[in-house]
């Protein structure tokens, strides 16, 4: 274990029904970086992220987050979690949603203005979430995760359905957050987002194919395109 690991996972095994979702995953996530969790849909990305935030039943293995076992009460004010499906209230306005989460987190109302600006949703503060597009809903959900200025942000596909300009803006935001020491673990199934990450975890069928920087992966496989990198890693295995 290195001194700078924000997350340390050892032999994490998750079984759902009789399906083994994660057969035994080990990895570390470096503090103050953006780590991309990439893999096709159904590869176990969401399950892995849920285990880190402590809402996933795990069969065995250990998950340490910021020096505490995942799910500890001490971690709850230090982790921001954005679920894959936007977990905000559809029958409330954007502002009402964020004010609610700010109250629960004991944050001042100024925090609501801050996160609305961060996700570029100031204009929509008074709109009902049910009336928003999928991408806008996702940004409200992301804004709620940013409220407490957490040390660790766990984001499950935060950029799905967003237009390229917004996606670029959000990735810039993620990098700004690392400058103030935040660790980000971001899942995606879009390979072109991989280049924006400091480190990549490539997951397939619950197994970690690689854990390296984008540059290292290119060198290792001799491929330029990250899609091809992924393919050649799978071929190596089989």
């Amino acid at each position, binding site marked *: 274990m290195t001194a700078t690991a924000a997350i340390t996972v050892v032999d994490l095994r998750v079984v*759902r*029904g009789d399906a083994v979702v994660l057969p035994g995953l080990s990895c570390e996530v470096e503090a103050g970086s953006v780590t991309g969790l990439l893999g096709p849909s159904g590869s176990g990305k969401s399950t892995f992220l*849920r285990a880190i*935030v*402590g*809402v*996933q*039943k*795990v069969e065995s293995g250990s998950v340490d987050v910021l020096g505490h076992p995942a*799910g500890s*009460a001490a971690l*709850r*004010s230090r*982790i921001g*979690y954005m*679920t894959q*499906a*936007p*977990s*905000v*209230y*559809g*029958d*409330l306005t954007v502002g*009402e949603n964020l004010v*609610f*989460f700010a*109250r*629960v*987190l*004991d944050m001042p109302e100024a925090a609501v203005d801050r996160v609305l600006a961060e996700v570029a949703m100031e204009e929509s503060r008074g709109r*009902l979430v049910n009336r928003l597009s999928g991408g806008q809903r996702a940004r409200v959900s992301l804004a*709620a995760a940013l409220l407490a200025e957490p040390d660790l942000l766990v984001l499950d596909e935060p950029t799905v359905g967003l237009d390229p300009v917004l996606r670029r803006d959000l990735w810039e935001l993620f990098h700004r957050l690392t400058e103030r020491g935040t660790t980000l673990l971001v899942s995606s199934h879009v390979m072109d987002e991989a280049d924006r990450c400091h480190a990549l975890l490539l997951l397939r069928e619950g197994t970690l194919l690689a854990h390296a920087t984008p540059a290292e992966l290119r060198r290792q496989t001799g491929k330029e395109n990250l899609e091809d990198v992924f393919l050649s890693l799978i071929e190596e295995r089989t």
Partner: protein
Amino acid sequence: MSMRITRAVALRVLGQLRRDPRTIALIVGVPCVLMVLLQQLFGRHSPVFQDVGTPMLGLFPFITMFLVTSVTMLRERTSGTLERLMTLPLHKIDIVAGYGVAFAVVAVVQATVVSLLALGLLGLDVAGPNWLVVVLAVANAVLGSTLGLFVSAFAETEFQAVQFMPAVVLPQILLCGLFVARDQMATWLRAISYALPLTYAYDALARTATNDVSDVWFAIDCLVVVGSIALAIALGAATLRRRTA
């Protein structure tokens, strides 16, 4: 338990309800219509309306709040927002208590309107104090909503949640003493009756109707109702799981 978070949850639930005026109209309007039907069916001065009317002031809120709360809580469970809440620094009981407080506020409105209608316009005579009828009707509603919160844990869909109403509520209504007095029930039925919380809620209202409230049994009724509400909140919180499969 945190007052701040309980309050935040209660305000949020009320904010969501405010966006759904049709549900509010149904919550308040349906018991009123049923009371009018009851009075018209038996007649203003009939012993049936006069005997059954007061307990009904508690039963209608009990049923509607049970339904509304169990479906609302189920929505929270299935929409993913509960999963987010579980990662936040709050206690599970804060969520359940927040829901309880929000629906208690709705219950106050509902029970007050229905009681005013029955005691005023419909001419229901209550020997005991009228304010006590309103308080007990609210207690019935809160009991219904906390039971609904608890039961929602066992439903996976809204369809199932609705089915819990006949399963959990109707036996309590049948056995509470309204249809057959408890001392005339078969022993085993009486034993079940004494184990069900609605029996005590019904008995308290029936005693208020006949101004039988200085009796020690009235105090016991009230204690059991309050205890059942607290127990249902605790069980409701216990059935919320931070970790799910």
